[in-house]
């Protein structure tokens, strides 16, 4: 067991988080309070939901950077239906989610049938989705969202020793639900296992009878759904819909998924890993804020995190393979 733990990516991530948390708690007194922690999770809930969707695509062996544009389109469509046509929530929210799935399906079509590399296909669709959204909306924000959308929904609340109110709100609950659902789908369903198989080796997966086309639609459609969900929750949090509010969050989300152990070559990664990745990023940003470091610095941190975490994962995997190869003939003798 300790050996397994030592090799597990998530255990390392958790150790880094604990060390960083301890350091921050010692330096910044406001850090280790339940209020700060719950606030942090709420701030990062939207990115967490997006990262869970992206994680599924990464496991399948692809990449998608159009999800922020998808989220903006879905959010704006739902907001437009709600604020301009005064549709009830039962229409607006499914319409937004459906738009997300549809845009994801366009990506899947390009990647599966047109056989475009996923990065190039999604760079193209990102530009098309975002540019068309900005063209048709003129960049105008919708600030008169109905109350059913923007009213804060609190599930649990309590007062801590310092007298601060700690609230478990809708975004946090949605993040937990999304994480549970993704975890169930990826580990307990046939489709999830097949996604791992396809990411590991698409050709062998195809030969054992996995329907690659259907899985492409599942992965990119799922990300589209999560993006739309994230978009709708983002509007719920800020109380308005700005067409370019989500644009530019791609790198943070991608680095969370990659931090969590997902690799661009596909087939690896886990939901707990992605959640820990989000927590690590949240702690990093919060810690930098508490230490009074310029917010401009955060992008440098993101870049370093991507470079360091991917290099270490890759070198560690390679070292492990080399060791196994050395060990194998000895066992055969």
């Amino acid at each position, binding site marked *: 067991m300790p050996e397994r733990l030592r090799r597990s990516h998530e255990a390392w991530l958790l150790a880094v988080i604990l060390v960083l948390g301890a350091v921050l708690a010692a330096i910044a007194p406001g850090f280790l309070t339940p209020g700060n922690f719950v606030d942090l999770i709420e701030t990062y809930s939207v990115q967490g939901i997006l990262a869970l969707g992206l994680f599924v695509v990464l496991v399948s062996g692809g990449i998608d950077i159009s999800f922020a544009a998808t989220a903006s389109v879905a959010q704006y469509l739902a907001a437009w239906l709600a604020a301009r046509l005064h549709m009830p929530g039962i229409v607006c929210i499914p319409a937004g989610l459906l738009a997300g799935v549809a845009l994801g399906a366009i990506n899947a079509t390009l990647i599966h049938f047109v056989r475009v590399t996923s990065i190039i296909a999604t760079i193209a669709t990102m530009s098309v989705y975002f540019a068309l959204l900005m063209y048709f909306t003129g960049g105008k924000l919708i600030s008169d969202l109905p109350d059913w959308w923007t009213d804060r929904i609190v599930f649990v609340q309590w007062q801590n020793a310092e007298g601060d109110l700690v609230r478990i709100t809708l975004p946090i609950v949605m993040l937990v639900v999304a994480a549970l659902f993704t975890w169930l789908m990826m580990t307990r369903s046939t489709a999830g296992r097949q996604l791992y198989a396809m990411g590991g080796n698409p050709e062998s997966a195809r030969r054992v009878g996995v329907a690659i086309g259907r899985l492409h639609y599942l992965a990119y459609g799922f990300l589209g759904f999560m993006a739309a969900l994230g978009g709708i929750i983002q509007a719920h949090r800020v109380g308005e819909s700005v067409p370019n509010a989500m644009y530019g969050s791609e790198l943070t989300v991608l680095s969370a998924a990659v931090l969590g152990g997902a690799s661009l070559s596909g087939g690896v990664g886990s939901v707990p890993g992605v959640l820990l990745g989000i927590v690590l990023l949240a702690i990093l940003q919060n810690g930098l804020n508490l230490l009074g470091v*310029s917010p401009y610095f955060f992008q440098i941190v993101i870049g370093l995190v991507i470079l360091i975490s991917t290099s270490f994962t890759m070198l560690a995997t390679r070292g492990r393979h080399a060791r196994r190869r050395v060990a194998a003939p000895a066992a055969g003798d």
Partner: protein
Amino acid sequence: MHAAASRRRPPVTERAPVRGIDAGLAPLLARLRMPGGLAGLAGLLAALVVVFGAAVPDFASGGTLQSVMFQMPELGLLSLAMLLPLISGGLNLAIIATANQAALLMAWLMRSWTPAGASGGTVALVIVAAMLAGLLLCVVIGLLTGALVAYTGVHPILVTLGTRSLLDGVSIFLTRGTIISGLPHQYAAVGNAVVLGVPVPFLVLIAAALACGLLLRRTAFGVAVFMVGSNIEATRYSAIDVRRVLVGVYLASSVLCFVAACLMLARFNSASAEYAQSYLLITILAAVLGGVDPFGGFGTVWGLMLALAILQVLASGSNLLGMSDYLKLAIWGLVLIGVMAAQTLAQRMKRRGP
């Protein structure tokens, strides 16, 4: 196993084996030049010029040609910087961040090193020194990127996303998102000069394209880049130091970004971390339209140049028609998707035919 094998293998002289492969690859490379494909692109270019010339009254004039020759070079150099990694089977998403950072460094050095009322000679010296510093920065960036791609085995997309975020972060952190201007006017004067009716930037582009073409077609390194792009394992077993080739690819890409940065400085007369961000899509679009295989291994400089000319004519035409920037961006994306769909279709038809 291959990783261990290449580590144990004694260093081989690159020349002999590569020359042998070059002979074997020659027929394949000849086929790659695709006269049909290039003729198609040239035909498309001619058709566009005729259509826009007829539809837009101001289009068919020397002014349009001049403005095309002024606007194309930056995009052309950035596209060349994208072309090399694409052919090697990778991608460099950090080209614009690299160019912007080099431009920022050069602008800052030129501004802070030029003494008030300096003579022409001093200014020239400062400009050359600043450009050397920019080149050095790009060489370092290229070597680091290449080393990360080659020695860790992390996918180039992730490496260059990381370096892009890092470079942009450093640029924005140091400048606080502001624009650096106030360059010595001599710099822009040379950068925007016109020699025999041809703008200097355009001459730079032609020189860079020729250099890239020669590098890819006439050197052992170039052949190795194509081989790495079409089958990296086979290349490794052909006794080619794949890692050194990859470092070279990202180094060359980064140096091309430096040249682009010099041209951008001359045209905007300032530098910022935010400039030219929309070019990333267009460089990929130009490469794919020009016949570069996004999976690596195939592509020509001439195809890329023709594709750039087509895109530039489209851009000038739509500018004269008064289209909005967002509509143009959407059209670029749709054109990219359309071109790739057409290529896939054409391939399928070919496979079904005799």
